[in-house]
C-alpha cells in the first residue's frame, strides 16, 4: 500500500532533525501568522491564483530567497566541517550526511535559487521592456511557476522524509544507479529536477513566444532592450537544452525503477553516455543563468553612465554567438574521460572561442562608462564588482579549457573556485543589481543606499576571501567534496580563511535582510516617482505602482531608447494615448492544483506508491483538459475603469 515508505524514513541524526524542526517551525509560524491576520483569502486571491506576471515574478523571487537561505545554511555546514573539524578525525557531520549536504547545496543553488531568481526577474521585466501587457500564455506561466514550487517542495521534503542524494548535484552514474544508491535520495533528486525542469521548459517556450509576438508596435528586433535580447538567448537555450535533461533524467529513473541498463556498469550500460548528455544540457544551463545577468548589466550601465549603450549591434551579436557556442563545449567538463587528443583539442579551442564574445561585452560596458557621467549607486557597485570577479573567473576558465591543465585540476577545489566565481560573481551579483535597480519600479520606494553598499562590500570581500584560497588549495591537490583530510597537509589555514570569507558573506546577507526591512519601514522617506533613475526603457514610462494592465495604451515605438528620447529631445513628441478596453486573464487555481498534484506524483514515484502517483497523474491530465476547454477565462477592464486607475496612479488626466 505505501510502497517503500515506513517510519524508518524519518530522520535519525541530530543535524537533520534540527533542520527539520527549524524548517517546520518557520512553516508553522507562517501558517499561524496568516491565520491570525486572516490573510489566507488575500493570499489566495491576490497572489497564489494570480496570472499577472508581475505577481508571479515576485513569488518566484520569494521562493528563491528562501532557498538561498537554505543553500547558504548548507554551505555553512560544509565550510564549518572543512575549516574546523576536517583536519583529523572528522567532525559532527558524518561522511554520508556531508555528501547529502553538498548534493543539496549544489542542486538547490542552481535549480531553485539561480533559476528561480532568473524566472522571477524575467517575469517582472520582459513584458514591461517590450511594452506589452502580459506574457503570451498567462495560464501556462502560472503552471510553470507551480511546477517550480513542486520541485522545491520535493527537494525539501527529502530532509524530513527519507534522505537526499549523495551523488553530487549531477548524480553521475554508476554511483547514482540502484546498485550503489539503493535509497530514495537519488529519486528525490531526479523527480525534483524533472518537475521543476518541465516548468522551466514551458516558461522558455512562453517567453520566446512573448518576445516574438507581443512587442510594442514599431519595436523591431534591433530596437529591443539588450536585456530582452539576453532573454531571447537564454530562453532559446532553455528550449533546446532542457529536453535533453528531461530525457536523461527519464532514462536514469527508468534504470532505477524498471531495471533498464542505460547507464549501469553492467549489461552493456554506458555511464559516459549519461555524462555526455547531462553536460549537453548542463553547459547551456550555465549560460542560461549568466545571459540574463549580462542583460541586466547592459541596462544598468547606460542608465548610471547617462550614455547610450556602446556597441548595441556588437552586443546583440555577442549574445547570439554565446548562445550558439554554448552548445559546442560540453566535453570540457570531462576532458579526463579519455576521448582522445583531437576531440579534447576541439572542445578546448571552442571553449576559448567563447571568451571572445564575452570579452566584447565586457569592453562594451567599459566603453559605455568611458566619458559618461558615472553615478556609483548600488547597482553600479554590483556591476564594478562583477567585472572584476567575473574576469578572474573567466581567466581561470580559459586556463582550465587547456586539456593538459585540466588533467591537473579536474575535480579539484580549483574548479569549485572557478564556477563559484562565475555564478556568485556573475549571476548572483547581476541579480542583486537587478533587484536594487528595479525595486522602486514595483514598490514605489528605493532600497536604502547605505545598507546596500555595506551589503555589497561584505559580499565582494567575503567572496574573494571565501574562494581565492580554494584556487590555491586546488593547486595543492585538494579534491572537491572532502569531508576530512590529513592535518599534515597544511590545508587547514586556507580553509579557515575561506570559512571567514563565508562569514563575511553571511554578514552581507544580514545587511540585505536589514536593508529590505528598514526600507519597507522607512518607505515614506524613501518614496520615489515612476522614473527614479532617469531610465531609458519603457518600464519607466508607466506609473508606479504599475497597473494590472502595465500600460494604458500601446503607443508605437520609434527609437531604441524610446522613453529617453521622449524625455530629452524637444523634437520628439509624446504620442497621443488612445484608451480602449483591455482584456486581462481571470485568476485561476489551475496552476496551484497542478503543482500540488505534481508533488503527489513525484512523492508516489519516489516511494513506489504507484496507485497514488497514477491517481495524481490522471487528476492533472483531467485538470489540463478541463482548463483548455474552459471558455470564460478573461475579464474586460472598461475605459472608465482605466481612466480612473490612471488618474489615481499618475495623477494626470488621460
Amino acid at each position, binding site marked *: 500500500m505505501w510502497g517503500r515508505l515506513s517510519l524508518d524514513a524519518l530522520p535519525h541524526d541530530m543535524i537533520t532533525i534540527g533542520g527539520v524542526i527549524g524548517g517546520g517551525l518557520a512553516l508553522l509560524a507562517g501558517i499561524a501568522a496568516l491565520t491570525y491576520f486572516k490573510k489566507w483569502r488575500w493570499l489566495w486571491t491576490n497572489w497564489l491564483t494570480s496570472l499577472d506576471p508581475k505577481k508571479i515574478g515576485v513569488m518566484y523571487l520569494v521562493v528563491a530567497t528562501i532557498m538561498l537561505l537554505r543553500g547558504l545554511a548548507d554551505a555553512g555546514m560544509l565550510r564549518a566541517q572543512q575549516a574546523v573539524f576536517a583536519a583529523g578525525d572528522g567532525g559532527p557531520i558524518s561522511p554520508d550526511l556531508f555528501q547529502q549536504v553538498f548534493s543539496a547545496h549544489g542542486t538547490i543553488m542552481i535549480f531553485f535559487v539561480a533559476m528561480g531568481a532568473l524566472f522571477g526577474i524575467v517575469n517582472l521585466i520582459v513584458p514591461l521592456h517590450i511594452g506589452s501587457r502580459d506574457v503570451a500564455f498567462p495560464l501556462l506561466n502560472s503552471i510553470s511557476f507551480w511546477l517550480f514550487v513542486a520541485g522545491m517542495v520535493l527537494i525539501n521534503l527529502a530532509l524530513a522524509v527519507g534522505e537526499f542524494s549523495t551523488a553530487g548535484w549531477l548524480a553521475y552514474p554508476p554511483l547514482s544507479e540502484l546498485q550503489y544508491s539503493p535509497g530514495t535520495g537519488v529519486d528525490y533528486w531526479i523527480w525534483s529536477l524533472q518537475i521543476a525542469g518541465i516548468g522551466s521548459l514551458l516558461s522558455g*517556450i512562453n517567453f520566446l*513566444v512573448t518576445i516574438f509576438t507581443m512587442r510594442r508596435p514599431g519595436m523591431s528586433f534591433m530596437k529591443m532592450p539588450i536585456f530582452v535580447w539576453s532573454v531571447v538567448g537564454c530562453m532559446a537555450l532553455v528550449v533546446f537544452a532542457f*529536453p535533453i535533461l528531461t*530525457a536523461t533524467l527519464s532514462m536514469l529513473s*527508468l534504470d532505477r525503477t524498471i531495471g533498464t541498463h*542505460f547507464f*549501469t556498469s553492467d549489461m*552493456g550500460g554506458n555511464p559516459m553516455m549519461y555524462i555526455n548528455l547531462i553536460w549537453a544540457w548542463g553547459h547551456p544551463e550555465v549560460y542560461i543563468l549568466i545571459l540574463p545577468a549580462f542583460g541586466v548589466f547592459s541596462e544598468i550601465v547606460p542608465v548610471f553612465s547617462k550614455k547610450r549603450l556602446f556597441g548595441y549591434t556588437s552586443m546583440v551579436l555577442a549574445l547570439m554567438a554565446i548562445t550558439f557556442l554554448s552548445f559546442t563545449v560540453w566535453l570540457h567538463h570531462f576532458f579526463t574521460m579519455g576521448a582522445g587528443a583531437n576531440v579534447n583539442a576541439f572542445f578546448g579551442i571552442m571553449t576559448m572561442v567563447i571568451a571572445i564574445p564575452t570579452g566584447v561585452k565586457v569592453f562594451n560596458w567599459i566603453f559605455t562608462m568611458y566619458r559618461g557621467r558615472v553615478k556609483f549607486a548600488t547597482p553600479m557597485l554590483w556591476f564594478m564588482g562583477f567585472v572584476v570577479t567575473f574576469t578572474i573567473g573567466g581567466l581561470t576558465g580559459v586556463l582550465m579549457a587547456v586539456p593538459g591543465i585540466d588533467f591537473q585540476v579536474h575535480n579539484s577545489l580549483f574548479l569549485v573556485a572557478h564556477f563559484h566565481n562565475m555564478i556568485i560573481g556573475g549571476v548572483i551579483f547581476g541579480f542583486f543589481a537587478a533587484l536594487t535597480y528595479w525595486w522602486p519600479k514595483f514598490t514605489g520606494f528605493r532600497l536604502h543606499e547605505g545598507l546596500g553598499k555595506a551589503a555589497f562590500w561584505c559580499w565582494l570581500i567575503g567572496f574573494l576571501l571565501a574562494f581565492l584560497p580554494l584556487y590555491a588549495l586546488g593547486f595543492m591537490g585538494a579534491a572537491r567534496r572532502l569531508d576530512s583530510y590529513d592535518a599534515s597537509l597544511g590545508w587547514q589555514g586556507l580553509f579557515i580563511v575561506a570559512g571567514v570569507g563565508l562569514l563575511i558573506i553571511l554578514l552581507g546577507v544580514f545587511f540585505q535582510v536589514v536593508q529590505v526591512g528598514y526600507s519597507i519601514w522607512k518607505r515614506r522617506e524613501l518614496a520615489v516617482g515612476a522614473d527614479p533613475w532617469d531610465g531609458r526603457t519603457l518600464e519607466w514610462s508607466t506609473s508606479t505602482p504599475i497597473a494590472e494592465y502595465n500600460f494604458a495604451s500601446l503607443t508605437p515605438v520609434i527609437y531604441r531608447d524610446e522613453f529617453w528620447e521622449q524625455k530629452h529631445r524637444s523634437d520628439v513628441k509624446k504620442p497621443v494615448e488612445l484608451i480602449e478596453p483591455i482584456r486581462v486573464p481571470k485568476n485561476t487555481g489551475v496552476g496551484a492544483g497542478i503543482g500540488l498534484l505534481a508533488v503527489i506524483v513525484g512523492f508516489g514515484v519516489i516511494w513506489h506508491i504507484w496507485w497514488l502517483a497514477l491517481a495524481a497523474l490522471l487528476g492533472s491530465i483531467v485538470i489540463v483538459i478541463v482548463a*483548455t476547454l474552459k471558455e470564460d477565462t478573461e475579464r474586460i477592464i472598461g475605459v472608465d475603469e482605466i481612466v480612473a486607475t490612471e488618474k489615481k496612479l499618475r495623477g494626470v488626466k488621460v
Partner: protein
Amino acid sequence: MSKPRLLEQKFLDYKTSTGFWLYLMTDCVLFASLFATYIVLHPATAGGPTSGEIFSLPMALTETIILLTSSFTCGLALLALRQNNLKQLVIWLAVTYVLGVSFLTIELSEFAALVGDGHSWQQSAFLSGFFTLVGTHGFHIFIGLLWLLVMVAVLFKKGITLKVKRQLGLFGLFWHFLDLVWVFIFTVVYLMGVAS
C-alpha cells in the same frame, strides 16, 4: 462578456501556433537525445540478441503504412474543417483514430512478443534503448489519441468553434510530427537494424 474580435482571434492563432511549433522543436530535441542514446547503445547487446535477430521488417512496414495513412486522413480531416463540414470532419477524425489505435496495437503486440521471448528491456542496454525510444513515440501516439477523443467530444457538443479550429490545427501539427519521427525510427531502428 463580449466575444473576442476577429483580429484578437487571429493574434491568438498566431501566438498558439508559434508556441506549439516551439514545443515541437523541444520534442525534437527529446527524441534526438533518445536516438543518440539508442545509436550509442546499439552494439551493447551484452550477450543478448542483436537488432538483426529480433526485428521483423514486414511488421515495421505495416506500422509505417498505417501511420502514414493516418497522417493522410488527418490531413483530409483538416480540409473538411476548412470547409466547415462537420460530418466529414468527424468521419476522417474517426478513421485517423482507428488507424492510430491499430498502429499502437501492432506496436504493443511486437513489444509483448519480444518480452515473451525473454528479450525485455532488462536484458541489455541495446534493448533498453530500443524500448524507450520506440515506446516514447508510442506514448506520444497515445496522448494524441486521447487528444483526438476530447476533440471529437467537443465537436459533438459545441460544433465547429474558433477554439476547436485552433486546437485541431495544432493536433494536425502534432500528428504529422509524430509521423516524421516514426520515419526516422523506421529508418534508424528497423531498416538499419535489420541490415546490421
